């Protein structure tokens, strides 16, 4: 139907923009649903980062010792570092499979801007990797003896912070696409960029634990999310075009 509209454009610019918007939504959904479908058919691969997150979290109480005070003190940093590493583990394949089988070229040849593809891929990554981390975060409460309010603060922080990790991870994956040692380079590029998320995410839990408000930390995490949402897909799209040259 959209094809028919484009073949005979009888109306003004507003209608053309509406149609372009519909096309961009269609592309976003097509890429997103395809990635979700692929993950559903490779369940083991999709679950590995989550399993890594849970196993890594469970090692700390065993290694550090069962002292609840110590565990509560290190919990925010440990959870956020594990979430970060789990994200890095999963983001490395975000574009490499599409590049090797030729799908990426086809996506870049779509009439819509590549930013739509970058946004859809990062959204799929968050839904498959970031959101599950938020869902299993209550386990951290068990492992590290966190109070209810601290746990709520951790979940809120992860909810705001993990999309940033997916967006920055997508950018790193695009920048290192096709390079030798891409996995290591990706980590070296992305980790420094994620430090603010780590600081404010862990800071929110620490603030709640010490009886202070975490609103400032949430605001900063929200601002980081907005900034990344505006900038990362654009930069990722440019990186994808350069990588595919």
């Amino acid at each position, binding site marked *: 139907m959209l094809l028919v509209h484009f073949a005979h454009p009888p109306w003004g610019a507003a209608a053309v923009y509406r149609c372009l918007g519909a096309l961009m939504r269609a592309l976003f959904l097509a890429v997103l649903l395809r990635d979700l479908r692929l993950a559903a058919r490779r369940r083991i691969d999709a679950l590995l980062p989550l399993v890594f997150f849970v196993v890594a979290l469970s090692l700390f109480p065993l290694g550090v010792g069962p002292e609840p005070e110590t565990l509560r003190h290190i919990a925010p940093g440990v959870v956020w570092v594990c979430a970060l590493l789990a994200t890095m583990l999963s983001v490395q394949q975000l574009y490499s499979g599409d590049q090797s089988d*030729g799908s990426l070229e086809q996506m870049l040849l779509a009439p819509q801007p590549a930013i739509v593809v970058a946004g859809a891929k990062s959204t799929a990554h968050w839904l498959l990797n970031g959101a599950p981390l938020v869902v299993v975060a209550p386990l951290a409460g068990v492992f590290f003896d966190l109070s209810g309010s601290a746990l709520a603060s951790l979940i809120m922080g992860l909810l705001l912070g993990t999309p940033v990790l997916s967006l920055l991870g997508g950018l790193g994956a695009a920048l290192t696409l096709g390079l030798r040692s891409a996995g290591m380079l990706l980590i070296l590029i992305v980790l420094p960029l994620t430090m603010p998320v780590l600081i404010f995410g862990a800071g929110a839990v620490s603030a709640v634990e010490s009886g202070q408000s975490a609103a400032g930390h949430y605001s900063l995490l929200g601002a980081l999310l907005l900034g990344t949402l505006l900038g990362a897909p654009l930069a990722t799209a440019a990186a994808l075009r350069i990588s595919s040259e």
Partner: protein
Amino acid sequence: MLAAAALGGQRGERLLFDGLDLQVQPGQVVWLRGRNGRGKTSLLRIMAGLSSPAKGAVLCGGVALNKQSADWRRRLLYVAHASALKEDLTVSECLNFSAALQGRRHSPEEIHTALSRWGIGGLRQAPVRTLSQGQRRRTALARLALPHPASIWLLDEPFDALDNEGVQTLCDLLTQQSRRGGTVLLTSHQTVPLRDPVPLTLDLDSHAIAS
């Protein structure tokens, strides 16, 4: 009309071709040939807008590719050597995804008809990982047989992995594309067995065009 003016392409520091002039009129089929490493695939990628030329420009309807509106890409169909198929998706899902990238939707009947034309109508729900190389190639090329085909086809080694029946199907589709005024630029190591129309040949070793 698709044209290249004084086009130069390079891979890394190595110049693959230089000063290449080419005009492909509606209805024409152009066969790019040349020794390995002469830049046939690079030229196709430049013509598709996936790579930037080292020199010169590619023009479509007299307008340079970098100044074309996004709608230009809707008129283009590029089938690369890599088939752009996902092992875990079915044949039908792969074709639907390709169509969705172009903002198109095809009914199951249209997909079935296109696949049947390639003799793989029964594989519509088969996962790509279960297909042979030839069947994968047929699946990738089934995009040519879907309704509302693009007006410009850029095909990288489309005859690879096809048996005689597949080669004949491809030739029939090329003939149809030519008759409706479409443009085809293809690379092939084999002689292109197309009789209607007889393809123009661009030899990248000499930059000479012959019919």
